[in-house]
Structures are given as structure tokens and as C-alpha cells.
């Protein structure tokens, strides 16, 4: 007998899914792409609850994407503050599943995983050991342990250590922050400047990594938590922003990348979505440069290529047994674009003042350029 995916199907209700990272800006969070993929799955109906940190995250105002948004406390406020807010939202919305998509918030959500489940909110996340094993700070050890190729690196707390490391890894070297930012340094002076700048932003330690040249490949993978990669889609960036983000990309056909992602999921027993950032060198080595513990912002490409990873995660979170995908479309291209979304000050006021924003009402503000201007009432 086929397992019923939607426990609310008989009552005519929708699955309620809460999603974070609605910052669809120039370096976008994955939230909007995750929702877009989920909404396109014909196997279930959903009500989407946006969880926001900032009042100007564009996803809040995309009312065909998000049904209602609630602000949540910053990760630095801790798990108790987050849990309290989620319980409040859950009492109103009866959330079935939360899909967090920010690196910085995942620690809190993973810590709360069991407590959320106890009140009926599912997640589909790795455990804390898996999450921390692939941390940038531990990546080299992780690679050595599992036979994965990763660049040599050193974790440092003092700027004076740079000179000694330079003798080992040579120039250029990559100076990286523990959460974000990476600078390629060609001299000791450049490395020192990068050290101080990154320290000021993200604190210590600083990671100094061997510079690897090659073609940058990104791989979106979905693990079932038992060592099986349910979906793997490799993508090459075709256009890169000044922040190193993909503005366009194409799906590739190369079993090297599929095998690499499968091995990662197998050795970690990864549960949920992740992204491997890989550098393919001219001599054919695939270096894992970073592992992001959540879906990438380009995740909608997986749905477009025939392996809808977000929708599949929803199915697995509801206990449905899903077999690994076998095929996908090669040569599918995404091209990101900018769009000026127009909204009312009243909407901004609501999310800023009350921490909640209904998605039902479409903005009527239009200035057609023909002299007719109409404002909504502030309420």
C-alpha cells in the first residue's frame, strides 16, 4: 500500500512548510528557489510560511511565493529565543515542516530538532556531528579521514603565523573567514591585510588555504541520512558575480562529480540538502573546497533538470521512501535576473512593526507614468 504523503490530505488542508533565507538579493539565500521548486511539485498542496530576519528580504513581498511571513530572532539570540518564537508561530499556523537554509542558523535548528519534532514540526537535517565534521575549520582533517581530496590548510589565530605558513603553501594563498569571505593573497602584506579585515568581520580563527587553480564546479546533493544520495546535480558556473556567486550556470554530465557527491553522502550519512564546491584541476583532480550544509541558491535548477531536490526532501521528511534519481537533463541553464518588486509602505510597516506579514493582499500601488497615482490605506 502506498504511504499517504500528505497527512492532511483527507481534511482538505495543505502541508504547512516554513522556509528561511528569503533574501533574494545579489548574493541570494536559497529560500525563494526552495519554495519555487516545492510549489511546482504536483504531488502535494502547500501553504508556505516565510521566516525572516530582515524587513527587506524580497521574498516576504512575493505573495505568490510566500503565504505569510513571521520574523524570527537572529541566530545569536540562541535556541530558547528561536524555540519560543517558533512555538508562537506553530500555534497559529500548525507547521508541518521547517526547511532552514542559512549556514549561520543551522546550528540552532539542529539543536532544536528533537524538541520541534515533539511538538509536531518535522525537519530533515543532519545531526550535529555531521554538521560540524564538514566545517571549514575541520575540512582538511575530514578529507584525510574519508579519502576525499581537499586543499591543504592551516587554522591560525595570530597574524605572525602567516609567514611560516607561506613557506609551506606558497603564494598565492587563500585567506578565509570562519563563516564567509575569502581573499587570494599574492604577498605577505596582502595576506596580513586580509587577515585583519576578515578578523574584524568574522572573528577568529582564520583559515589559510592552499590556492588551487582549475574549473569551479558546484554540486547539489540530497542525502537520505542512511548513506544514500537520492539526488546529485553538478553545475558549472557560466557567469560569476564580483562576490563569486553564480549568475548563470549549466548542468553537466560527468560521473566524476556524481561519484564524489555520492561518496560524501555515503561517508557522512548526510541527511538533507548540501552543496559541494569543487575545483577541478587541469590534471583531473577534484578538490572539495567547501561543503555548504544546505541547499544552494541555484537549487531550482535541480527541479528544472528533472530532480526536484526540495520537493523530494519534503517527501522524505514525511517518511516517504524515495528511490535515488537516475537521470537528469544535461545542458539545462539558469540565468539569474534582477527585478524591482513594488510594494506599499504599509506592508513594510506591518512586518517591521508587528513581525508578521500576510501574503494574501496584492499591492495596488501603481504609478503608470500617466498621471494617475493611487495609494493603499495604511492599516
Amino acid at each position, binding site marked *: 500500500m502506498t504511504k499517504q504523503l500528505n497527512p492532511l490530505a483527507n481534511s482538505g488542508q495543505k502541508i504547512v512548510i516554513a522556509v528561511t533565507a528569503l533574501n533574494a538579493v545579489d548574493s541570494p539565500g536559497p529560500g525563494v528557489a526552495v519554495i519555487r521548486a516545492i510549489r511546482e511539485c504536483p504531488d502535494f498542496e502547500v501553504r508556505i510560511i516565510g521566516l525572516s530576519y530582515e524587513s527587506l528580504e524580497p521574498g516576504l513581498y512575493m505573495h505568490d511565493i510566500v503565504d505569510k511571513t513571521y520574523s524570527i530572532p537572529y541566530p545569536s539570540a540562541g535556541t530558547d529565543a528561536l524555540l519560543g518564537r517558533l512555538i508562537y508561530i506553530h500555534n497559529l499556523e500548525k507547521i508541518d515542516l521547517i526547511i532552514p537554509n542559512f549556514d549561520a542558523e543551522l546550528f540552532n535548528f539542529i539543536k532544536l530538532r528533537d524538541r520541534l519534532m515533539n511538538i509536531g514540526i518535522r525537519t530533515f537535517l543532519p545531526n550535529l556531528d555531521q554538521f560540524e565534521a564538514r566545517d571549514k575549520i575541520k575540512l582538511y582533517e575530514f578529507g584525510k579521514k574519508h579519502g576525499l581530496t581537499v586543499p591543504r590548510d592551516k587554522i591560525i589565530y595570530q597574524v605572525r603565523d602567516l609567514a611560516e605558513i607561506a613557506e609551506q603553501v606558497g603564494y598565492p594563498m587563500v585567506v578565509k573567514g570562519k563563516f564567509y569571505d575569502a581573499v587570494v593573497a599574492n604577498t605577505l602584506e596582502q595576506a596580513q591585510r586580509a587577515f585583519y579585515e576578515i578578523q574584524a568581520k568574522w572573528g577568529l580563527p582564520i583559515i589559510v588555504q592552499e590556492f588551487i587553480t582549475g574549473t569551479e564546479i558546484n554540486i547539489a546533493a540530497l542525502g537520505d541520512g542512511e548513506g544514500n544520495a537520492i539526488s546529485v546535480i553538478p553545475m558549472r558556473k557560466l557567469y560569476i558575480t564580483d562576490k563569486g556567486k553564480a549568475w548563470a550556470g549549466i548542468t*553537466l554530465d*560527468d560521473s566524476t562529480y556524481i561519484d564524489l557527491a555520492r561518496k560524501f553522502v555515503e561517508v557522512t550519512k548526510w541527511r538533507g540538502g548540501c552543496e559541494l564546491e569543487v575545483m577541478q584541476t587541469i590534471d583531473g583532480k577534484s578538490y572539495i573546497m567547501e561543503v555548504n550544509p544546505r541547499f544552494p541558491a541555484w537549487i531550482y535548477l535541480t527541479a528544472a533538470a528533472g530532480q526536484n531536490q526540495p520537493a523530494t526532501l519534503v517527501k522524505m521528511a514525511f517518511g516517504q521512501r524515495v528511490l535515488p534519481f537516475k537521470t537528469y537533463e544535461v*545542458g539545462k541553464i539558469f540565468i539569474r535576473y534582477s527585478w524591482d518588486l513594488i510594494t506599499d509602505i504599509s506592508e513594510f510597516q506591518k512586518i517591521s512593526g508587528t513581525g508578521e506579514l500576510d501574503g494574501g493582499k496584492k499591492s495596488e500601488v501603481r504609478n503608470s507614468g500617466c498621471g494617475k497615482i493611487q495609494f493603499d490605506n495604511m492599516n
Partner: protein
Amino acid sequence: MLRTTILAKYSPITMMRLKKNIATSEEGFIFNPGTGDSFSTNPIGTDIIKIFKDGKTVEDVIEIICTKYDVDQKQIEKDLDDFISQLKGYNILD
């Protein structure tokens, strides 16, 4: 003077094989699905790739192109040599 021609480099019966899964179109678009690289070539390049795909030899390519485009054989040999080097450099030919 020693002159290197394509027929000195490759046997006339050498068949050039496109790498696995290389996609080509009649408009001269070439796509390598393993790397994501794409290229465009002119009508003569399109013809040459089609002839390679049909399993013809280097000698066949020279003969067919000479006939179709009414150009000097030495010139074709030189240009074909360059073209094959480019295709190999871009990982399109085995």
C-alpha cells in the same frame, strides 16, 4: 625545406573521433556536456565535424572539402591541421 603537413602528422586513413556525448548542431554549435563549454564554428568547420562524425578519414575530409569549396589542397591541409589542434585543445576530439 622540410614542410610538415597534416598528412605527415596523421595517416590519411586516421579517423578523428569526437569525445563521448559531444553535442553538435547543423548551425555549427558544439556543446561539451562534461565541462559545460560551448563553441560555435563556421560552415566549413561544421562540415568537417559532420564528416568526422560520419566516421570518415582525414583524407576523406580533405577531398570532400576541396571539392565542395574549390580551394587549394595545401591550404585545406594546413587549415585542417590547425582546426584539429583546436578541437583537441578544447577536449572535443579524442
